[in-house]
């Protein structure tokens, strides 16, 4: 197999897993709460920086820093829900308020990261270091971990949503919110749970991905934009969609990058998404109406 092909394939599968991971939390929250969480990137940053701090200041191994980072991100997400989302649930200005609020939180977190740490790039150690080569392409073990984690998480989330009590409650709330409350499901608290779970997912993505680039306070924005794109491409609210769309877009971008150059990768993806929005705004597996009149 040609080096180029292996490079593109490896990149594609890796990107795909990453995108899927980032998109999963976003799509869950949209499905359940109908909230577009533009602070998703901030959760990514929180997870990464907490893990970094555990490793560099507490001198603990990354394996311990990982769950701490994830928990921190989940807790932060839940806090965000309590302060900024819960007060406006059910009110007519919900979409407006939460859109702006999450944007505000996003930049606040960036600024906080600069203040607490500093704007310099940080290095987060990988959970598994080392690599090997296939057809002259470097395959990192951390990369394999990311792919494995992503697939495992999708599987876990799927099982969770299908069979667990909370998972079914989340599905119920996203499908028919009033009926859910009539079944004694605490709707608002369920929202909080979903948001916390999405925080955990974003935090995990953050810790796993940070070794691939240098962590900085603005690290969250790009993954979030990617997550948005993947989520909408796959269909807002669809877990399956996030997985499929993640890989489709990841592989597409990787191949474009390898064969046509890095300058075309981003625009290529954007054009693809624009096309999708025009032709099929619901995305691949989307739920709920999108069309205006």
């Amino acid at each position, binding site marked *: 197999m040609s080096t180029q092909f292996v490079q593109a394939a490896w990149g594609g599968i890796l990107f795909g897993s990453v995108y899927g991971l980032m998109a999963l939390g976003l799509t869950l929250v949209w499905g359940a709460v109908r909230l577009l969480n533009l602070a998703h990137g901030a959760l990514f940053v929180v997870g990464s920086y907490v893990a970094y701090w555990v490793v560099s200041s507490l001198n603990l191994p990354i394996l311990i820093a990982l769950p701490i980072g994830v928990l921190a991100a989940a807790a932060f997400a839940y806090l965000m829900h309590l302060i900024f989302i819960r007060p406006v649930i059910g009110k007519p200005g919900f979409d407006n308020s939460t859109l702006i609020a999450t944007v505000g939180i996003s930049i606040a977190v960036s600024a906080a990261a600069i203040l607490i740490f500093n704007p310099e790039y940080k290095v987060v150690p990988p959970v598994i270091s080392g690599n090997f080569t296939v057809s002259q392409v470097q395959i990192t073990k951390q990369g394999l971990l990311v792919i494995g984690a992503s697939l495992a998480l999708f599987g876990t989330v799927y099982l969770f949503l299908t069979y667990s009590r909370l998972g079914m409650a989340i599905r*119920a709330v996203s499908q028919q919110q009033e*009926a*859910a*409350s*009539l079944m*004694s*499901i605490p709707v608002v608290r369920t929202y909080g749970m979903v948001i916390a779970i999405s925080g955990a997912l974003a935090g995990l993505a953050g810790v796993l991905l940070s070794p691939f680039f240098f962590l900085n306070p603005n690290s969250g924005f790009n993954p979030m934009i990617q997550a948005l794109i993947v989520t909408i491409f796959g269909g807002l609210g669809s877990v399956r969609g996030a997985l499929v769309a993640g890989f489709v877009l990841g592989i597409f971008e990787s191949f474009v990058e390898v064969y046509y150059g890095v300058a075309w990768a981003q625009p290529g993806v954007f054009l693809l998404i624009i096309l999708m929005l025009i032709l099929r705004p619901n995305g691949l597996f989307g739920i709920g109406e999108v069309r205006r009149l």
Partner: protein
Amino acid sequence: MLEVKGLVAGYGGGEVLHAIDLEVREGEGVVVLGPNGHGKTTLLRAITGLLPPRAGQVLLDGKDITRWRADAIAAAGLVHIPQGDLLFPDMTVTENLLMGAYYRPTWSERDARLARVYELFPWLKERGNQLARTLSGGERRMLALGRGLMSKARLLLIDEPSLGLAPLITQQIYASIHKVKESGMSLLIADENANHVAGLADRVYLLETGSLVRQGPADELLRDKALLESYLG
């Protein structure tokens, strides 16, 4: 068991319910009769926490549940089977039923309830894996009822059980509700057709334009010729 005192409720700028007083005693079947659009659904929604009342009180076994959230009220045993069913469209029949038992019963409790529901509507067991949104009108109603029965309800509020159903299915539905009542459940049913509920009702309230205009024992009211004329749907 359930007491409503001076309940006032509405939407936006308007008031739909003007100081409603009603009660449902243990084991009773109470029917709220009234034409469409006069507040029956609003009444049920206000009682079960889907609509915050503007004034008045709702008491369940003496506890003031007026400002309680809907899920808390459901957990307290006051279960609302809403107009339009409000099923979970992308969940299967079985999943919908299981959601009714969200309150976390023991396995045996849950199985017992499930068995009872299957007794009432055997087809629910056979077609357990069918998605709720593919069901017909009558089937949805039955599923909604079954779902409500999965809870630990002591008082069932049913909003227009026969809405949009063909006469044959309607009969089936009411027959099932009758069986439920016989097993000891207290009922508060909102309906617009006196005929349907004749066998179920112990007492009847008449709701017109948001106010209770008459009330009394069922046999008394339902014998009233003039009444029957206007309420024979």
